[in-house]
């Protein structure tokens, strides 16, 4: 999709795109973290009609609603296509030996063949984390692999 980005000096950034129905939609990302969603009218293409204003926190929530299920959806679709492949979630307990250690230290893929494809931390999703990414207590790891592989990663994260 083609998204146009325009700098608004002193205000922030404006993103613009056209939806499949032909609506020209604009999103103003303000410096303070707030967002405005606007719609461009058809009679005056330069005039933005405000649709709604989101605070920092509200925008995060909306992003999650729009974004998070799609990650999960895509993963299940992917695993369905390959027989034997599963997706699983593994919780990092506060007592795990890898808390505050880089993800790479687990050597999960070398040891089990399963891949950690995302880390869910509080409200954020870190997609395809690098081996240098630090693990934190209460992270949730999204793992793809065989059933045994996923169980193996769980074992490693729990006990080292």
């Amino acid at each position: 999709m083609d998204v146009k980005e325009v700098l608004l000096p002193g205000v922030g950034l404006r993103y613009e795109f056209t939806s499949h129905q032909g609506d020209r939609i604009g999103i103003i990302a303000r410096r303070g973290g707030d967002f405005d969603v606007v719609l461009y009218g058809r009679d005056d293409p330069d005039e933005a009609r405000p649709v709604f204003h989101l605070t920092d926190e509200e925008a995060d929530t909306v992003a999650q609603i729009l974004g998070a299920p799609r990650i999960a959806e895509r993963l299940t679709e992917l695993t369905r296509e390959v027989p034997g492949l599963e997706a699983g979630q593994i919780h990092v307990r506060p007592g795990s030996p890898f808390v505050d250690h880089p993800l790479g230290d687990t050597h999960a893929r070398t040891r089990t063949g399963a891949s950690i494809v995302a880390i869910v931390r509080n409200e954020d999703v870190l997609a395809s984390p690098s081996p240098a990414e630090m693990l934190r207590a209460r992270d949730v790891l999204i793992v793809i692999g065989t059933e045994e592989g996923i169980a193996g990663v769980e074992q490693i994260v729990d006990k080292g």
Partner: protein
Amino acid sequence: MQVSEALLFQLGALLTTLAVLGAAARRFALSPIPVYLMAGLSLGKGGILPVAAAGEFVMTGAPIGIVLLLLTLGLEFSATEFATSLRHHLPSAGVDIVLNATPGAVAGWVLGLDGVAILSMAGVTYISSSGVIARLLEDLRRLGNRETPAVLSVLVLEDFAMAAYLPLLAVLASGGNWLEAVAGMIVAIGALVAAFAASYYWGHHVGRLVAHPDSEQLLLRVLGITLMVAAISEFLHASAAVGAFLVGLTLTGETADRARRVLGPLRDLFAAIFFLAIGLAVDPKELLPVLPVALALGAVTAATKLVTGIYAARRDGVARRGQLRAGTALIARGEFSLIIIGLVGVASPAVAALATSYVFVMAIAGPLLARFVGGPPPAGAGVAN
């Protein structure tokens, strides 16, 4: 410690009056600046109510208002935004200077003013009010409009032009010759480039000097450093305003965001005091005779700003109605013109009177024209505020 009940009461009454009048102005989507000026005019020299005790405080606080206005303006800017504005809108900035500085200069010349006064009048009619216009775009819900980047870019470039112009004027107004003035301007431009380089390459180091998790610490550090830099640049005849602007430019990122937040309320208070001080220093009896000239000058420079806005918006490929919106949005003059008056006011009372009534006219007419020419603010879902 001697508590002066006269000072406390007068100041309190002043601020309360400003709050009530400002709220009334905001109800009609007007800028509160003319209201503050009006309050100053009616109270000070030749006004209806003398406020001797608070007057002294207002006069002391006014320079702090200028420093804070410029500091927060500098905090708003980043090198990228300046570079982008320069790339897209350098011709617009040229048109802006030529069209809008000329009427002021010509008016000064026709009225038989001296060189410094002519230069200051050119500045007064040139510079739009970033403060009033940013607020206006927000109130009229035009931030998302396609002409808005052009408007904001023109404002950014004007503000930077001021950083070169103010030292020039400051030296001349304090009786220096042209050579010293140009030297002052070159020093200021050099400092501007240095501040930009500093913020670009070592912004986070500079930030670390003042950064502190505690808001109080951050406030004291930023304010302390800014006031000292402002004093030094005033001593070098480069104008305190420019020094404060440079400090603001140097701070970037997270520190700048937080500094903006903690300084905001302080800026609002002292900016109001600064506007009051301008009103206090001018005798309203001197304003009436120059009002026709101010109105004529206002009509001409409203037209020239309109052309500037149309030109800038057209460069961005905006259609006719958007061009008109851009043009009318730029008409308002305000704090910068008043800073210029503050610089030359003592040396040249004629300029102070004419320019004050001019700003008065433009700070009222600008928002009104922007509101009615560009069409009403679009109605949208969730217009709660």
